[in-house]
């Protein structure tokens, strides 16, 4: 999707997602990275909210997994890239899953579609064999 490369001077933060407290940790780490890049309060809030939705998706639908949150660059632009990885059953119909109101879980079905609106780049790789990997970038 993207020309973004990982900022070599900044560490990738990895968070294991195994319970609902871990979703809170993902939010906190996303906020820390947003501060490092110098996001405005609104930009940070959008990133953190997307992080929360996607971490919950990893937990609820993927049966747990992990998140990697890193600072990335493309030319002079800087942003935060987040990867959510699980080894769950995959998403059979991605288009349907992205639609508002579609849910298989306890939520409102705003998680995937809603979080896509809160970031600049959004990519899903999913299969029944290998699980789901969602990568998003929000630029400053």
């Amino acid at each position: 999707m993207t020309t973004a490369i990982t900022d070599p001077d900044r560490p990738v933060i990895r968070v294991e997602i195994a319970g609902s407290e871990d979703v809170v940790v993902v939010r906190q780490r996303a906020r820390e990275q947003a501060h490092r890049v110098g996001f405005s309060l609104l930009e940070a809030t959008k990133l953190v909210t997307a992080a929360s939705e996607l971490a919950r998706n990893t937990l609820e639908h993927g049966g747990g997994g992990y998140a990697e949150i890193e600072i990335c660059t493309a030319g002079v632009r800087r942003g935060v890239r987040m990867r959510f990885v699980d080894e769950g059953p995959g998403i059979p119909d991605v288009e349907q899953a992205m639609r508002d109101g579609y849910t298989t879980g306890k939520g409102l079905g705003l998680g995937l579609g809603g979080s896509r609106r809160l970031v600049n780049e959004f990519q899903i790789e999913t299969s029944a064999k290998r699980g789901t990997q969602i990568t998003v970038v929000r630029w400053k």
Partner: protein
Amino acid sequence: MDRIPILQMARTLLVTVQVDMHDQLAVRLLDDLTTMITKTRARGVVIDISALDMVDSFIGRMIADVAATSRILDAQTVLVGMQPAVAITLVELGMALPGVRTALDVERGMEMLDDHGDH
């Protein structure tokens, strides 16, 4: 077990959310509030989220559920103190919280209940 405290003032319940809530904590708050409304015969619930720097679809749904449940139990819910960045993000996420009454701060939220209630 973690719990968010609920204060009772006459027939109004006041909840000030000051921690970044994980999902189970949010669910427990909904349960506790429902029980308290019945037990105290409260006519109003004020939920202060001015300390929250994020409301996602799960917490948003919990708030909407509190409002809907309290209405059925003959109590009004007012959500107060939402930060502007949180409000903008919530709308962009697709949650406009229809049916949830809001006020800028706790004082105005209490006034709103006084105007409607006989409590």
